[in-house]
């Protein structure tokens, strides 16, 4: 009986103030959508870091006038370094072959580069890619080295852009959340005002606080959850349309976005939407329904 009463009050409450309810749901869904996008991006960057950092190498390019003695010295220094997990050597000819394969689509470009234009190099995998700095310091002073390049610094630039997007969408989410929360607070105030007589009687006859407050809090929670579902739907459709179809080329660099991760956003957004609405409603009621 009580459950039925409470649920009925919730539906009546949402319907009584339907324009406000819609505004509340829309802002909530935009905010939660941005939150979901931000979390997904964060997970994606994390996944990409794991993937690429496992693959990256430090390249030590040798000068074109390097002597055999210098090369041997460099080789033994690298082999003796405790930071190194794997080392390969690439001759000029190998570098050129690889270059030809890599740019096979642009034969004119390949023709303009001769087998001698590319430097020979050592490719080194570090046990811990984070230790690049100390490794580079140890090796770069040696004779015969032209350049030490860490792929990581290139990747970091890319990841910084992603991080920027992620922080940006988190910022927008927070900004929209402020609007959403103000709307929740306002809706609850209006609802409490329109039910002030009932509330007064309930307090008078000794209805418990939770019983008085539950319909209002649930009203906010239902709106929050609907907002979350809409936000999630937009996120999912956006993922399918943009990443899987329109911008498919991008995903081959990005490492694929798993549907599982996207589905994970549903409980997350619903949870955040419900909890945040409930807390806001409850705090609002503390001010407007003194017991």
């Amino acid at each position, binding site marked *: *009986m009580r459950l039925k009463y409470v649920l009925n009050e919730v539906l009546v409450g949402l319907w009584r103030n339907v324009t406000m309810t819609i505004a509340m749901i829309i802002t909530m869904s935009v905010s939660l959508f941005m939150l979901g996008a931000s979390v997904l991006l964060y997970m994606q960057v994390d996944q990409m870091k794991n993937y690429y950092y496992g693959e990256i190498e430090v390249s030590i390019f040798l000068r074109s006038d390097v002597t055999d003695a210098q090369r041997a010295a460099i080789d033994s220094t690298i082999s003796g370094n405790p930071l190194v997990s794997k080392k390969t050597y690439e001759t000029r000819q190998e570098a050129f072959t690889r270059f030809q394969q890599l740019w096979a689509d642009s034969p004119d470009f390949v023709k303009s580069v001769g087998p001698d234009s590319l430097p020979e190099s050592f490719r080194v995998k570090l046990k811990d890619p984070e230790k690049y700095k100390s490794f580079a310091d140890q090796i770069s002073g040696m004779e015969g080295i032209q350049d030490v390049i860490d792929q990581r610094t290139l990747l970091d630039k890319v990841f910084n852009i992603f991080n920027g997007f992620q922080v940006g969408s988190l910022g927008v989410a927070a900004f929209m959340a402020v609007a959403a929360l103000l709307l929740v607070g306002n809706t609850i105030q209006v609802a409490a005002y329109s039910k002030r*007589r009932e509330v*007064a*009687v309930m*307090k008078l006859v*000794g*209805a418990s606080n939770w019983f008085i407050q539950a319909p209002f809090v649930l009203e906010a929670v239902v709106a929050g959850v609907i907002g979350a579902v809409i936000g999630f739907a937009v996120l999912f459709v956006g993922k399918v349309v943009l990443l899987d179809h329109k911008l498919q080329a991008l995903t081959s660099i990005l490492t694929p976005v798993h549907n599982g991760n996207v589905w994970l956003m549903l409980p997350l957004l619903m949870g955040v939407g419900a909890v945040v609405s409930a807390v806001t409603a409850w705090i609002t009621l503390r001010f407007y329904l003194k017991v």
Partner: protein
Amino acid sequence: MIQLENVTKTYPKASRPSLDDVSVGIEKGEFVFFIGPSGSGKSTIIKLLLHEVAPTRGKVVVNTKDVTTLRSWKVPHFRRSIGCVFQDFRLLPNRTAYENVAFALEVIGKTKAVARRVVPEVLELVGLGGKEHRYPHELSGGEQQRVAVARAFVNRPLILLADEPTGNLDPDTSIEIMRLLDRINRTGTTVVMVTHDSNIVNQMRRRVIEIESGRIVRDQARGVYG
């Protein structure tokens, strides 16, 4: 049943206390009038007994419970032992007489079946048999107050508080409401009524406590308005 011990209540920003060192005891089953001019502090007593306000100093004991130290989450349960009637009835306009009374039961967790059993009974008791399905605007002032009394009494409280219950009613109707409160008192319910209706006080000849400027100036068994 009710004990006020050296109770002082000063509202914030008020220049003088509404109640000033008031001590009074009311036994179970008594019928007590609190009388006095407007602003004398009568209504503050009702608010203290309901725990709507807390005393600035002193102790309020209702039904062996010290209201002063009552935790706020226990207040709702405490109020279930007290019925309350006001000058302005405080009925829900979009509910019938039956629904108004049943509402009071349902919001404290009683089932619809219980309501179906006890609500017609109590409406019969207050003399509204046959008018269960009228809305408040279809009832006279006296009838509306009867609904309010039925709502206050349906849960069989130990104490019935009445804050100027006849303030909006004509003299004849007022006397009918008083008969009703008297009948409720005879069931063993303690009745505390705040009023400045001298007619009624003089007719009932019950205990009269007169308050002036927050102090008790008279406490008389079988008293008159004075």
